[in-house]
């Protein structure tokens, strides 16, 4: 049983490798096609043609495309993501400093959205077709229409400016204590959590309603089980699979949402670095970021896949 599950995960891992290679390659190709000349970025204002040629040779921009890609890939494998031409810092070191910031933000956001999704979704499913269901559904629909940056601006307006409960911008690291961290992270996490929370509400409701209509629920009723057990045991474990699937999607989206939210709240995470490097034309940092995020997302998806094995015994034996 265990071995087949490991094999399942192993297979997923093996499939993930080409995906990651492909995504970095795609980005590399796009950069090749890009009108932006990396040498021009390095050369600063008004460079002479000689200076540009010199930089091209120095950084190897004149070598064949594939050579450069393979070299970059090989270095990346060894933990060398290159040096940013703008900040002159190691890209990996910079990213590694920022990763825990964004990760902690995403974890808090995930917590908020899960609590919301499970509570609202379950309440709606148990009152299917009723007023409460309609209400929950409407709330979810409304919240779906509030993208993270709108939520962020509104939250700042109401909870930082009009009634100053939280600071409007800034960041305190977790190492300074959970209190300050929460103070600075709650609003950004909330802005990130709204759409995922609404999404999870709908998904939990749908999955639970579907599970409650299955034949095995009728069987459970036929043997006289209490409603608590039917919902909490029989339906819940089966409803978990589609919910976990969405959870993986939601985490991916949160990393995307962090781009805007970190900008608004001036949080020095991965999102901020992506916008900065675009505005600075720092493609080397961006390339490193793509690789890092691709790996992160792959790991999340892998965890989702692994959890299927627990919820669905069929996967363990096949």
């Amino acid at each position, binding site marked *: 049983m265990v071995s087949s599950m490991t*094999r399942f995960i*192993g297979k997923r891992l*093996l499939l993930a490798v080409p995906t990651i290679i492909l995504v970095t390659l795609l980005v590399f190709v796009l950069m090749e096609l890009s009108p932006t000349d990396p040498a021009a970025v390095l050369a600063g204002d008004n460079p002479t043609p000689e200076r540009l040629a010199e930089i091209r040779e120095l950084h190897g921009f004149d070598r064949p495309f594939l050579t450069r890609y393979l070299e970059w890939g090989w270095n990346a494998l060894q933990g060398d993501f290159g040096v940013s031409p703008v900040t002159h810092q190691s890209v990996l070191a910079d990213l590694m400093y920022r990763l825990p910031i964004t990760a902690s933000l995403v974890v808090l956001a995930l917590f908020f959205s899960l609590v919301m999704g499970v509570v609202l979704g379950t309440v709606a499913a148990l009152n299917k077709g009723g007023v409460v269901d309609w209400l929950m559904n409407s709330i979810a629909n409304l919240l779906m229409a509030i993208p993270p940056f709108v939520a962020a601006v509104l939250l700042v307006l109401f909870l930082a400016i009009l009634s100053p409960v939280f600071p409007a911008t800034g960041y305190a690291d977790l190492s300074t204590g959970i209190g300050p961290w929460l103070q600075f992270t709650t609003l950004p996490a909330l802005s990130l959590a709204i759409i995922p929370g609404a999404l999870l509400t709908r998904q939990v409701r749908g999955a639970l309603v579907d599970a409650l209509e299955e034949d095995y629920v009728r069987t459970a009723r036929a043997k006289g089980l209490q409603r608590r057990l039917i919902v909490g045991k029989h339906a819940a474990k089966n409803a978990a699979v589609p919910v976990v699937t969405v959870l993986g999607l939601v985490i991916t989206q949160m990393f995307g949402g962090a781009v805007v939210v970190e900008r608004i709240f001036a949080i020095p995470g991965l999102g901020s670095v992506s916008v900065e490097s675009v505005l600075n034309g720092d493609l080397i940092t961006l390339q490193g970021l793509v690789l890092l995020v691709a790996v992160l997302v792959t790991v999340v998806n892998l965890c989702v896949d692994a959890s299927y094995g627990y919820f669905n015994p069929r996967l363990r034996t096949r």
Partner: protein
Amino acid sequence: MTTTNPTLSVRGLTKVYGRRATLLRRHPHQLKAVDGVDLDIAPGKTLGLVGESGAGKSTVGRLVLRLIEPDAGTINLLDTDISTMSRGDLRRMRSHATMIFQDPYTSLDPRMLIKDSVAEPLIVHTDDNRATRHKKALEMVRRVGLDTAHMERFPYEMSGGQLQRVAIARALITDPSFIVCDEPVAALDVSTQAQVINLLNDLQAERGISYLFISHDLRLVRLIADEVAVMRAGKLLETGSAERVFAAPETDYTRELLAAIPGRSPRHRRFNGETAASVELDEAEREEAVVV
């Protein structure tokens, strides 16, 4: 008496499912869904193909029309070897040999009007204009016992029995000589089953069509088939005239199948107290066979 060539003659038909060993799959997981099957169907006759789920009956039905590609064996249909036929020829062949499926609710395109479904083969196989196609479709729809009003309906507006008759009309519109009937009445109520069976019988008498009639229901096969072939786990166990197979089955499995038919009168109650445990392994094996 002159010897007529059989409508369908199949030799050594084999289909293997599963994949070869790869980097991740050390052991090839192969399964012979159909294993060296030989069949003959004479013109105007019906061959009943029986067996339980997973026996490979439906696969045989699709193989003989090359709706799925066989891995080995020859298929002679209407004096032509179709096992090596090109795709284009194969498509033209389908006006002479076609198929009726188990579930009439899903075997008709839910987004097409009945008249369009029935007339579709004419678009593919003939140069008939719209008016002619409509006329022929109407004729055919009437022949299977429906009327003009049904032509303008969508499948969801009709009952299972009616839909199966539509499927028959669609199959017959190009006047084929051979039809594979894959469990054509399994999805229908008892009282409508009989209507469809009668219709199939009448059409055979009228047009001399040959049927390959696939069913799990031995009662049904007994009523409609001239010849019977019993399948199990991809292999043909025995073939023979319907009278012979039902009266004097040659294999234990056929006997077991016959014994399992529910009785038709309380006076014939035939429980024999045999324990089920002995058959469990069997069942598990068959189960295994379904999983591809």
